[in-house]
């Protein structure tokens, strides 16, 4: 693939033109050989292990905690309660100023008076080993006064319902309505209105590496070093400093290898803050690695929504508008510091996303529950908004007797209509819905599939083909969190330096959780400086050694971290050429760097190697002109300016078979076309898209955090909470359309959430296409066999 025009380099066929090439990840050999360093692999001298007593009740007053028996357990060193930690740690309230009217209650590392969900950490035991700490937990005695639990979000705002935090007045945390046009009049005049109530099940990330942290407070120099599996080390540095009453410069956060994140590891967890507080008190390292039960009960959950939605169309299929009411339950606290109102807010922003229509009304109401807190998880709100929008689109197509592809084509925003502002006020710089649909139809053999579908139906085999177009929000600006008062950085930086041997080291504020950040940064830096990619080393995940940045969330690694890397690399190249020009008595603009050699730009002739240049600069600076700059290091930070977000788009298709006797769904094949702007490494993007699809399909088919009416979590093991396995997943075909963002030289937008955003909607439509001849449909995720059989009237 040639160097993209927007990169602006003149030599498009240089061997170190790495952008757009499928370069293998340099950090993969250590992962496949078992030589990575995850947080649990780190062992520090005098380290203690934490285990927590977690509330067995969804809602209960803590009357008394007796610790004597626990302290008598061999190996147990200390026991901490909420009151102990409150002496060194200030509570937090997770609201953002720009989410008008939002409220939440103060939250401590361990609660002072009440437990508000089953699984909330209440007492901590520290011991020489995790096993001894667990023995200590078993010996703790707590007197509980169980309180009524608020578990049903439909009744959360009713009079007489338990108000979880009485000082807030009610259980309503946030509400927002976006409107455009005259929805009531438009719907009254419509040719047809389709409507449905969609439910998306509570699910969670199930990172295979559980949440992991070691906090180490050094009394000699007053520093807190935290090894943590986190997506946002600089954000965590701020949080620890602020709430433990330290300076930010006294706190260092290190994250080496991280075993999956998906948004789960970008939040502040009370038990992790408790670990930092205990280390601060003791002056010793404290390790906490969540076990799988703790993960299910205390990792953030997501997607607990009930959405009543209707869509109006004209006789020719023109979409008139959407009218949507979203209700979501978030547990007892809004999660710090991103807040738990964002998912509902995103539903309001994203419904109807791919289409051009005039009338819009969407309300979200965010309410408290005595269940685990929910917050941002991969593709925040996207799969919900997409399933609702696309579910209605295919319902309308059936109601009109129209091809759902044709209905989409008539309504999708034209590819030449940009810039475009959507009804809820989202500004799109440039999307490619029609080109993406065209590309998808090149990949999906629709005619063959429809023929097969008709043939199979005669034999009583029900197969369905479903589509889902979507938009995805990436490259967030300060408009996401910063304007709300949160210290969550939307900019990112990169420092690039050349060492004496001509190799290049780049440190970046964005982080690696397996998506390949370090690989694409190495490609971009190699491309920008002009060296072989093997000569570039990347440093991420250390607040002491990387430029300040936001880390990895909302698809910003390539688009923001990548652009900072490109700018710093180009600046370093210019600096190297300035020095080389002095050495070679040539104007710098007549020189170039190709695969580690200074070359003559006009002829391509090699003039000098970079390691020779390094040798002279670092060891024989006496031979260079006196006033020549001697630093071979550059730093650039990047932030988007024109648009609050880089929106991307895509479309998926799912081909599935429903067994009408068992209710089981078999996935046959899946297709994705997505437009993430410049594709830096197709190998990485493709498998990340597939991983996103599998996570979306998992949420739509299997994954469900199930509570009973008293707030008891019933899915606490991987035998209860099902995730997709290799045998159940289909082949997933990935295609690309590239519409680079004009905000940056690189032109990259995000790609990590596209798969998850679209897959549940495509599957919803595939199942309902299969069931259509039987007059049945399902609207409640996950689409379990029981729900499908119920829709068929067989259960």
């Amino acid at each position, binding site marked *: 693939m040639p160097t993209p025009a927007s990169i602006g380099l003149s030599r498009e066929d240089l061997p170190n033109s790495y952008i757009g090439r499928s370069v293998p990840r340099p950090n993969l050999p250590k992962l496949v050989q078992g030589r990575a360093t995850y947080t649990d692999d780190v062992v520090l001298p005098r380290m203690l292990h934490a285990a927590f007593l977690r509330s067995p009740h969804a809602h209960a007053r803590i009357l008394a905690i007796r610790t004597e028996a626990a302290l008598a357990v061999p190996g147990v060193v200390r026991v901490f309660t909420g009151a102990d930690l409150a002496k060194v740690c200030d509570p937090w309230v997770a609201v953002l100023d720009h989410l008008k009217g939002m409220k939440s209650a103060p939250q401590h590392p361990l609660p002072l008076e009440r437990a508000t969900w089953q699984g909330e950490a209440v007492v901590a035991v520290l011991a020489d080993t995790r096993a001894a700490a667990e023995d200590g937990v078993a010996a703790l005695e707590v007197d509980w006064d169980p309180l009524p639990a608020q578990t049903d979000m439909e009744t959360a705002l009713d009079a007489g319902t338990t108000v979880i935090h009485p000082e807030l007045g009610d259980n309503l945390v946030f509400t927002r309505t976006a409107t455009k046009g005259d929805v009531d009049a438009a719907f009254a005049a419509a040719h047809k209105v389709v409507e449905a109530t969609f439910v998306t099940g509570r699910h969670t990330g199930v*990172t295979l590496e559980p949440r992991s942290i070691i906090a180490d407070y050094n009394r000699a120099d007053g520093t807190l070093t935290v090894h943590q599996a986190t997506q946002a080390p600089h954000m965590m540095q701020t949080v620890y400093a602020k709430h433990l009453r330290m300076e930010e410069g006294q706190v260092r956060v290190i994250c080496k290898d991280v075993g999956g994140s998906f948004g789960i590891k970008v939040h502040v967890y009370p038990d992790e803050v408790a670990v930092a507080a205990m280390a601060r008190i003791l002056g010793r390292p404290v390790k906490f690695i969540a076990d799988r039960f703790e993960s299910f009960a205390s990792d953030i959950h997501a997607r607990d929504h009930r959405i009543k939605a209707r869509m109006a169309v004209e006789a020719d299929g023109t979409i008139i508008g959407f009218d949507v009411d979203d209700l979501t339950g978030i547990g007892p606290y809004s999660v710090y510091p991103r807040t738990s109102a964002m998912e509902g807010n995103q539903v309001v922003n994203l419904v109807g996303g791919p289409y051009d229509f005039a009338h819009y009304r969407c309300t979200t109401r965010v309410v408290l529950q005595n269940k685990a807190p929910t917050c941002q998880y991969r593709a925040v709100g996207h799969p919900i908004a997409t399933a609702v929008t696309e579910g209605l689109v295919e319902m309308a197509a059936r109601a009109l007797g129209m091809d759902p592809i044709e209905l989409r084509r008539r309504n999708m925003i034209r590819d030449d209509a940009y810039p475009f502002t959507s009804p809820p006020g989202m500004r799109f710089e440039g999307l490619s819905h029609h080109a993406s649909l065209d590309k998808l139809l090149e990949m999906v053999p629709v005619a063959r599939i429809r023929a097969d579908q008709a043939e199979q139906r005669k034999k009583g085999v029900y197969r369905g083909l479903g589509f889902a177009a979507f938009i995805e929000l990436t490259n967030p600006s300060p408009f996401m969190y910063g304007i709300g008062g949160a210290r969550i950085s939307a900019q990112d930086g990169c420092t690039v330096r050349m060492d004496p041997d001509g190799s290049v080291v780049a440190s970046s504020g964005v982080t690696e959780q*397996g998506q390949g950040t370090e690989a694409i940064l190495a490609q971009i830096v190699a491309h920008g400086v002009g060296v072989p990619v093997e000569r570039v080393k990347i440093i991420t995940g250390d607040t002491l050694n990387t430029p300040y940045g936001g880390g990895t969330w909302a698809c910003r690694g390539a688009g923001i971290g990548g652009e900072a890397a490109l700018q710093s690399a180009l600046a370093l190249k210019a600096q190297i050429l300035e020095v080389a020009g002095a050495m070679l008595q040539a104007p710098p603009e007549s020189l170039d760097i190709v695969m580690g050699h200074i070359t003559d730009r006009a002829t391509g002739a090699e003039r000098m190697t970079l390691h020779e240049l390094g040798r002279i600069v670092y060891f024989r600076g006496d031979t260079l002109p006196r006033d020549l700059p001697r630093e071979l290091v550059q730093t650039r930070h990047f932030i988007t300016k024109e648009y609050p977000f880089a929106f991307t788009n895509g479309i998926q298709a799912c081909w599935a078979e429903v067994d009408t006797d068992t209710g089981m769904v078999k996935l046959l094949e899946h297709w994705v076309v997505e437009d993430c702007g410049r594709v830096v490494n197709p190998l990485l993007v493709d498998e990340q898209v597939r991983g996103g699809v599998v996570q979306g399909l998992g949420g739509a088919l299997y994954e469900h955090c199930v509570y009973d009416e008293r707030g008891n979590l019933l899915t606490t093991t991987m035998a209860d909470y099902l995730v997709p396995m290799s045998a159940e997943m289909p082949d997933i075909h990935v295609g690309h359309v590239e519409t680079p963002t004009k905000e940056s030289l690189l032109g990259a937008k995000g790609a990590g959430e596209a798969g998850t955003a679209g897959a549940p909607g495509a599957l919803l439509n595939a199942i309902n296409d299969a069931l259509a001849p039987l007059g049945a449909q399902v609207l409640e995720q996950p689409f379990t066999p029981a729900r499908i059989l119920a829709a068929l009237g067989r259960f």
Partner: protein
Amino acid sequence: MMITLTVNGERVTRHVEPRRHLIDFLRLDLGLTGSHAGCEHGVCGACTVRVDGEIVRGCLVLAASLDGAEVTTIEGLTDSGEVADLQEAFVARNAAQCGFCTPGMVMAAADILRHHADADRAAIREHLSGNYCRCTGYQAIVDAVAATLSERAIHTPADAGRGDRTQEAGR
């Protein structure tokens, strides 16, 4: 109790508590951190290791039951060079993202290479179903295993052993 066993070709003798699981014995007592504890109840497969030639869940086996056993972890499997070509295929196809499941996945895939040389893609998917991956779409992993199987079928007579393949030769 005291146990003596062979781990990655080296004889080790250790005192273990009766409740110590193999995965904790390997990670905490021997410092072999390549194998991971993912779910701790035998479902996810991240702790997969080889005991006396068969793959097992390290979180379900008690170390105390392994006196005299021969254990191979991802570190030993790598050092022997037995799966160097498979690991190379994982890298070439980006068949890992966060890598937490990967050592267990490689152990399970090595079992396919040893015992199921004729496995097709469906059989590979079936065999790997005990190893959860939350990052990839599984497809690249299946690709890597299938490619390794077909390379071995081309270059190696069906009855030849793989134990003599050095790491250097594969990488």
